[in-house]
């Protein structure tokens, strides 16, 4: 009779697994499910099966999953240094809107981040990264890059074009304005565009959870706060 309690607990654990977005949490819930079924088998008079369920379901698989998540949980981030979005300063470390967003995401998903500066021109170098960031926008120059990576839309921006035909985005334009205090060239507004995070093509689950995280942050106001703090 008491085994029904354990089956009920196992059922509720497996239902709660459906809503677990964090990988570590879902692994621990899976281990808990193994423990619950083990208890149920024990009370049903099958101690042998109970032992196997405990050793495999709660012990072995939990450890294997945790090790593999730790192993794949290191995300190599390549970034283009962009003021206000992701900017490394000697004393303070990293600052910026995109940095706060990605580190909030990493904290929620138990991921380790490994930052490295990149230039978009070194195309073959980029393959070893899982995620590219730092004010990336579609300006027509790096179409091959944007096509071969998963795009996650982060923030709305504007593109501007000067007399020489150079395209520049709002953040870099603002930085230039703050630094120089004036404009030597006239800029035309090209209209709305977006900053993107580029995620390695095979890691669709990473792209999906990042999208979900951004939607959530917009809803609960964190997104607004990051914008207020970094972009003004």
């Amino acid at each position, binding site marked *: 009779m008491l085994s029904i309690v354990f089956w009920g607990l196992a059922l509720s654990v497996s239902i709660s697994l459906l809503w677990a977005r964090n990988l570590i949490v879902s692994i621990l819930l899976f281990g808990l499910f193994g423990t619950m079924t083990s208890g149920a088998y024990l009370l049903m008079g*099958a*101690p*042998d099966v*109970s*032992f*196997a369920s405990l*050793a*495999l379901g709660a*012990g*072995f698989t939990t*450890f*294997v999953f945790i*090790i*593999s998540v*730790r*192993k*794949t949980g290191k995300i190599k981030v390549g970034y283009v240094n962009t003021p206000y979005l992701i900017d490394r300063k000697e004393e303070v470390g990293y600052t910026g809107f995109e940095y706060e967003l990605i580190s909030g995401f990493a904290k929620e998903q138990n991921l380790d981040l490994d930052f490295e500066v990149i230039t978009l021109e070194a195309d073959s170098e980029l393959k070893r990264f899982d995620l590219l960031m730092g004010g990336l926008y579609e300006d027509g120059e790096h179409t091959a890059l944007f096509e071969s990576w998963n795009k996650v839309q982060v923030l709305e921006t504007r593109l501007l074009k000067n007399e020489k035909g150079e395209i520049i985005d709002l953040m870099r334009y603002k930085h230039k304005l703050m630094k120089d205090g004036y404009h030597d060239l006239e800029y035309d507004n090209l209209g709305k565009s977006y900053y993107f995070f580029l995620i390695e093509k095979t890691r669709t689950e990473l792209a999906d959870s990042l999208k979900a995280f951004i939607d959530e942050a917009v809803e609960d106001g964190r997104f607004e706060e990051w914008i207020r703090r970094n972009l003004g």
Partner: protein
Amino acid sequence: MSKTGNIVVLVFLLVFAAGIYLNLNESKLTADRPDYITNLITENGSLNAVGAVYLDYRFYDTLFEVTVFFVAAFGVVMILKRIPATVSEEHKNNIDYNLNGEAVDFRMKTAGTLIFFLSQVFAIYIILTGHLGPGGGFVGGVVAGTGVLVLSGTRDIEGIERGFLDLGIPVFEKVIMLTLPLYGLIGLFVFDAALSNFHLLEHMGIEDSRLWGIGRGELISGGTALFLNMAIGIKVFAGSWAILYHFVKHRGVV
């Protein structure tokens, strides 16, 4: 060497399986079927009825359960050997690294060693008393494998690898796969049927003697149950380690 060894073992098992299958005739399958429930305690001598069924009356099933595990480990090793081993840059320094490539500190070492020893003691206990209570070779092997997994997450992975090879665990694995059919043949030629359990000490005239510690409920009871549990335990332990070790070495990922 390892490949030929594995193939020899597999061919031997296939020939053995065919031989046993041809040896089974209808009378053995239907008419002579033992009445497990009533005969179990008197005939087999194990206190654990489940263990008695899978180590005696249904040992043909158990043998191939072990073989499936053997083939799985063999396949993983064969496929991964083609992928070059990943040598982490960090390993060049004189610091110990675990299988995640993280530097090991003393807290991890202490906790990992403690869990390892507890799990090994528990594994040995449930393997040795598999015929007296719940437990047995399969569960014990998995518990021991989990212990090594915890250890390799908290200690120098290369040291564990050396220790494993020095102990000759991969060789043990193949020897055991050969021993199980040989055990079955002893049953066929010396006792009543292939793969049958036999009470060697009782055949020698030392029946149910408390002096020899072979009475019911003693460690040496249930005929060959103790030997089979130990063999299966080592086999499962070695197989689970071989799979994990090759994943770590050749892919860098479990």
